[in-house]
């Protein structure tokens, strides 16, 4: 394995030879590879309505391709006419560099599937690159929108994404390794890192894990990272996913390893620590004091979203002593009409909010807004008037729902929203004791997690106070001279600016 990896680093590009052994084993009749015939290829695409097979020159020239994968205009206008012109001899034409002579059936089939056109002329096959993939253009990120800074987001096309990254990291040290995942889907996965910064052990680990995946198909990077997680049973993501090229570029420069997958607009980076999920690229584009303030706000939001409803439940069902005198009367008054114990009341409202969120996410934007209004005003008001909930609970539930959306990473905020339910049940059963137990469980669980082998709670455990100024605060750039210790970068200093 070590030997193999070494060769990868040397070649670095086009890493596909590895997969071949696999594919050969899969092929049902390996003998048929011996001779390349037209019939053979046509047989392979049996029952494929979108497959185009055209014949010219009394069936001496055959053209084979998938119409929607190639640029048909270019094919018909530029490439076919000289071939069809019977005056010109074909031989010199096929010597041109755009024609690639092939003898291997397997390669022919794969290339056609990739979007090349195959010319079959008198038992000789030539491939022509007229790939014209269908993809959307680079658009603004919708899930991770920011106010100041670049608005580009990744698309489903890996090459587009690579170009977006290359544009931001213009260095020959940026290495890209191509891997293939999925027995059927054969999706391309690219592992990116910066040589001399990233720790080679982590690079090897990520590559090894991706290679070890044995699955029929992987459709998205979010699915891929779940196959290579350290702890698949945890509710916390162990890879940071983003669709912002600028975030990915900063992860690369800080010494992390990045993966992108063809067909997925999401890139992932590792090793990640828990607190990275709470930082947004916005923090770095605004002035440092504002960035720090919004970081604090987000950690406060985390606390609110996790504990507020649970605290309401535990206080109203166990710890009446904790409530200030002025509040207790309003609280009792609004609770006095409610027929349920606080735990059912809270679970009911939390579930309603989750229903609203889920419905809003599934519906088109225009209807989604209506859902928000219906849910927020109608249900909120009516539930209180009908005596199903107290209005203080509505405030608690709504503010913890809002706080959950303050967390910039959707995956992480979803994890905490789920965990909130567990805490509410704990608080309803055992009061503050249960709440404390639940929070202690989170802390214990988090400290046991790893991301590609690196500690998940990194600047806290192991204790690295230097990193705190980039994790819990966002100090001026002159103070952030070193790369995070978690990535064990080979080159630790990133800033040589003298101030």
């Amino acid at each position: 394995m070590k030997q193999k990896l070494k060769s990868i680093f040397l070649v670095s590009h086009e890493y596909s030879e590895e997969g071949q052994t696999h594919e050969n084993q899969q092929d049902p009749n390996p003998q048929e590879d011996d001779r390349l015939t037209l019939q053979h290829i046509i047989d392979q695409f049996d029952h494929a309505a979108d497959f185009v097979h055209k014949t010219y020159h009394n069936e001496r020239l055959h053209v084979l391709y998938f119409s929607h994968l190639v640029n048909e205009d270019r094919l018909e206008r530029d490439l076919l006419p000289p071939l069809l012109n019977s005056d010109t001899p074909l031989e010199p034409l096929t010597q041109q560099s755009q024609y690639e002579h092939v003898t291997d059936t397997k390669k022919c089939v794969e290339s056609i599937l990739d979007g090349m056109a195959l010319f079959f002329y008198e038992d000789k096959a030539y491939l022509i690159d007229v790939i014209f993939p269908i993809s959307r253009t680079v658009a603004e990120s919708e899930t991770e929108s920011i106010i100041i800074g670049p608005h580009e987001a990744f698309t489903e096309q890996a090459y587009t994404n690579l170009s977006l990254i290359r544009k931001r990291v213009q260095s020959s040290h940026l290495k890209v390794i191509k891997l293939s995942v999925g027995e059927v889907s054969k999706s391309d996965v690219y592992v990116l890192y910066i040589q001399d910064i990233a720790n080679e052990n982590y690079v090897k680990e990520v590559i090894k894990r991706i290679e070890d995946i044995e699955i029929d198909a992987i459709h998205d990077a979010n699915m891929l990272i779940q196959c290579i997680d350290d702890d698949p049973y945890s509710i916390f993501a162990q890879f940071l996913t983003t669709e912002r090229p600028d975030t990915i570029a900063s992860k690369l420069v800080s010494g992390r390893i990045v993966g992108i997958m063809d067909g997925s607009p999401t890139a992932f980076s590792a090793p990640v620590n828990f607190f990275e999920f709470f930082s947004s690229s916005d923090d770095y584009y605004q002035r440092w004091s504002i960035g720090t303030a919004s970081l604090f706000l987000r950690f406060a939001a985390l606390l609110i979203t996790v504990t507020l409803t649970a605290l309401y439940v535990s206080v109203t069902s166990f710890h009446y002593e904790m409530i200030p005198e002025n509040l207790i009367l309003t609280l009792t008054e609004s609770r006095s009409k409610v027929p349920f114990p606080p735990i059912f009341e809270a679970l009911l409202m939390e579930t309603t909010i989750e229903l609203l969120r889920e419905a809003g996410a599934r519906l088109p934007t225009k209807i989604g807004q209506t859902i928000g209004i219906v849910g927020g005003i109608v249900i909120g008001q009516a539930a209180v008037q009908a005596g199903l909930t107290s209005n203080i609970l509505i405030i608690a539930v709504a503010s913890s729902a809002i706080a959950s959306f303050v967390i910039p990473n959707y995956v992480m905020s979803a994890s905490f929203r789920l965990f909130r339910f567990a805490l509410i049940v704990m608080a309803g059963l055992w009061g503050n004791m249960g709440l404390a137990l639940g929070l202690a469980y989170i802390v214990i669980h988090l400290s046991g997690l790893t991301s590609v082998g690196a500690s998940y709670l990194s600047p806290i455990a192991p204790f690295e106070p230097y990193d705190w100024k980039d994790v819990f605060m966002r100090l001026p750039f002159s103070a952030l001279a070193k790369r995070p210790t978690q990535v064990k970068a080979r080159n630790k200093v990133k800033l040589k600016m003298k101030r």
Partner: protein
Amino acid sequence: MLKKCTCLLLLLCILPIFGCGDQRILEDLGFIQTTSYDMLPNGELSFSVSIPQADPETSAKREVLIATAKSSKEARMIMSRQTGMLLVSGQLRNVLFGISLAENGLHGHLDTLFRDPSISSQVKISVVEGSAGELLIDDYKQHPRTGRYIDMLLEKEALGQTIPKVTLFNFARDFFDQGVDPVAPIIKKHGNNYITTNGIALFRDDRYVTKIEPQDALVFAFLKSKFREGQISIDLTEINGKKENVMFSSLISTRKVKVTRGVQGVEKVTYHVKVTGSVLEYIGDARLNNARERRELEQRISQYISKKGDAMIALMKKHQVDNLGIGTYVRNRVGYEQWKKMNWRQELQKIPVECLFDVHIKDYGKFR
């Protein structure tokens, strides 16, 4: 193996918590906000509690329960038969003792307050001139719920130093500490209209002995500890014969206690108090913008307060109480061995205590 250990650990964690099944759901509770203790002429105790009502279906703002019993917990049981709510004392804010009970000693009744873990040590303690139950049962139309009215009154008055803020913690500390006796604010009901604070109750151990009149309360505050904020009205007529009145406010007072040792134990205790404030109202002949006359006025005020202070100490000596905590200073000075040998209550009467006030007028208003 590891799995088994984890399961066992989880079980160990969960098992003790199953004991905490005593849910107290908010709307089913009657939180006692204020309680009062009175001694009836026949020696029985009369208790009353005030519970704020939050249920919108009743028009009353609070519920008052009254019981006659031998102990407060017994009274609780009698009271709970009268109400549909579970009586809890975790929201208790004020405890009122009728003066008749205070004279007989509070300790037995305070014991339940100290001992009950759900009762906060920040509960305020006060003595009621007259019957505490009557004061609590009455509704004062122009004021919020009686319990809250008392609480706000005590809170606000303590800010201006006219009464000391005495919580259960303060009272218990002074009660158990050696060389200091507890105090408590006195409140009084005036008809059906209002309640006022009415001086400071001085205790000997747990028995009410005497009181300090409300107009002298600030002098007690000067001697008791340092403070900021507060105002005092001073009538200097008796000192120089002419009509002269000063309203001295925005006070900042600092204090030093000096214990001088003589041949046989303590020779003398001196209070050095520095008071700074501004004159808000002045009726008299002195021109305050004249530095010399102002200094003379300062002198007169110092003299006046010193006299009040001496009188207060004389009062305490007479009743053999030490609510200022002079004993603690003496104890710290002479060492615990010698302190133990002393009978402080008698010793206090022999030791001269001197009050030296140094008043400074910081500011004297817009008219110069």
